[in-house]
């Protein structure tokens, strides 16, 4: 438990717990049913891979605005290429995600474009590709067996949740136990220091964007499986959702902080929030206002705690070195 709470995830634990308790008390007759908890699990595990990708990029000190459009395009390819065989379609979708990630990585590392701006441009291009590919019509899948991956369950556990948990473990090991993963933290924490320590900054940042693009595509594949269909409308909110979830999970826009477990708890918290408010029948106006207030609160608290921590460090340093 102590390990789980280290590294900034404690906010996420508390926010998730608060939301859970709030709805368990106020909407218990609907909220705490097996069926509803399974719904929430399925709903969040479709978004979770994309949020993990955003967390990796944030840890490396970047940001990826293009995740939503990449997810939508991957969903389109998964559905649209099914006549060539579903495995081909899935591989193509994942490869597309990796390519877009590489493109972002190229823009940021070689083009030296600010990540926010570079991925914003990519987003527009990918949306255009999607409009072209779908000819602006919804496209439907033909492989009914494939819907099991997003819609099916193993026992009472939704299949996408298993995939998400597998990704969670894999990414957590990657970030914490491999040299490349630890280097991402170092780069996010301070590029100059990382560079001086002999880390090839560009290559690692490139890797972070490729991971983000690929994971966005994983979300797209799962989504295509669940909906058995794809439209241009998918993923419009994904950038905001993924950034909010990762921040709640302890990541910081300054980079160098955050964990995959935290990102998962963040997306869980937001998923429960939406589900709980729906169960309460909360008016759309208030739902938007509540979500906005949480975003503001989380961001402000993150900033405030960094400021205070820095002041204390400075005070401590001054004490040591008069």
């Amino acid at each position, binding site marked *: 438990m102590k390990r789980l709470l280290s590294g900034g995830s404690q906010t996420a634990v508390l926010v998730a717990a608060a939301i859970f308790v709030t709805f368990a008390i106020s909407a218990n*007759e*609907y909220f705490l*049913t097996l069926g*509803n908890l399974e719904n929430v699990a399925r709903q969040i595990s479709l978004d979770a891979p994309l949020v993990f990708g955003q967390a990796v990029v944030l840890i490396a000190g970047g940001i990826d605005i293009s995740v939503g459009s990449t997810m939508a395009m991957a969903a389109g390819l998964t559905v649209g290429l099914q006549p060539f065989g579903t495995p081909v379609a899935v591989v193509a979708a994942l490869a597309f995600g990796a390519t877009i990630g590489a493109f972002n990585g190229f823009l940021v590392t070689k083009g030296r474009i600010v990540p926010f701006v570079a991925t914003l441009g990519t987003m527009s291009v990918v949306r255009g590709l999607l409009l072209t590919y779908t000819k602006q019509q919804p496209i439907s899948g033909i492989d009914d067996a494939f819907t099991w991956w997003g819609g099916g369950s193993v026992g009472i556990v939704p299949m996408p949740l298993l995939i998400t948990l597998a990704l969670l473990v894999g990414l957590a090991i990657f970030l914490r136990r491999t040299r490349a993963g630890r280097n991402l933290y170092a780069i996010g924490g301070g590029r100059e220091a990382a560079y001086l320590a002999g880390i090839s900054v560009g290559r690692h940042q490139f890797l972070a964007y490729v991971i983000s693009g690929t994971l966005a595509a994983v979300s797209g594949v799962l989504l295509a499986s669940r909906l*058995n269909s794809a439209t241009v409308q998918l993923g419009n909110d994904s950038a905001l959702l993924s950034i909010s979830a990762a921040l709640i999970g302890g990541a910081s826009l300054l980079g160098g902080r955050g964990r995959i477990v935290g990102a998962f708890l963040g997306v869980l918290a937001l998923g429960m929030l939406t589900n709980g*408010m729906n169960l309460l029948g909360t008016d759309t106006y208030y739902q938007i206002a509540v979500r906005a207030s949480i975003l503001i609160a989380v961001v402000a*608290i993150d900033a405030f705690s960094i400021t205070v921590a820095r002041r204390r460090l400075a005070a401590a340093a001054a004490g040591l070195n008069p």
Partner: protein
Amino acid sequence: MIVSLRYGRAFCASLAFSTLVLMAGGAVAADGPFSICVVHNNADHPSITAIVKGMNDEGKIYGANITYFDPAFDPQKQVSMVEDCIARKPSVIVVNAVDPAAVVQVLKKASEAGFPVVMQNADTNDAGHAFTKTFVGSQSYDQGYAVGQMIVKATGGKGNLVMITGKPGQFDVVQRANGAKAAFADAKADIKILAEEPADWSKDKALTVMQDLLTRYPDINIVFGQDDPMALGALQAIKAQGVEGIKVFGVNGNKDACNAIKAGDMYGTAMQLSYMVGVYTVRAAYDIYKGRQVPTKMLAPTAPVTPDNVAALYSQCW
């Protein structure tokens, strides 16, 4: 030290949050005898507001407890919201499909869990019909077709048309365009479609787009705005340029458009009768709740509003 500080702040925020939600959420709906859970496709449009008004007015008569959800055109959110509806255990679920195919799986889930589903305004596909009781609404394709017929009639089947469309990729956009084109083909009309430009359902964008289209194609004589606000935006651009002889058509039948038709500025609109769609949805839901049979399709007629009949239909404009 730092950790404990973060704990403290987060805890305060959590408390504040709980209060916020409980205040905003109000009381949990009591397990009333007749309840309806509605998932819109996008609530932020006057035509949906009219449907909601119809449902609320009629719902009072039947003592219905109605809850509304708004996925804002996101098919993924819509599926999640239908699931949340199922968890609320309503008498009837009403769905206004964002994407006809994407809702099929969740409709199946609702049906298997024993909740009857009524499709409203935008239907699901044939695979989905196995899990729904009925469809209530006027169809986008029919609206497009009705406008197409009006255009053929008003122009003698000859002319150069530009279409101002909604957000690219949306179901209504494609269907209204297809309907109009089919009407032209059926009437063997010689109507040339010069351009289809999106203005994202925005009056202001339609104004800008129409200006550019007027510059590009000086020979435009027909404009089809896929909803009334966009048609009115286009009309304003035409007036600002002082161009004469362009016939503007819309879809919706809102008050503003009816006034413009009355004044002779607009040539026609396809009225959706959205209020009545809301009313009939509640009636159908009540019949299903009482175990009565309902027809599998309850199509609201699309009423063409033209300068000739606008006076008679004016009271229906919303």
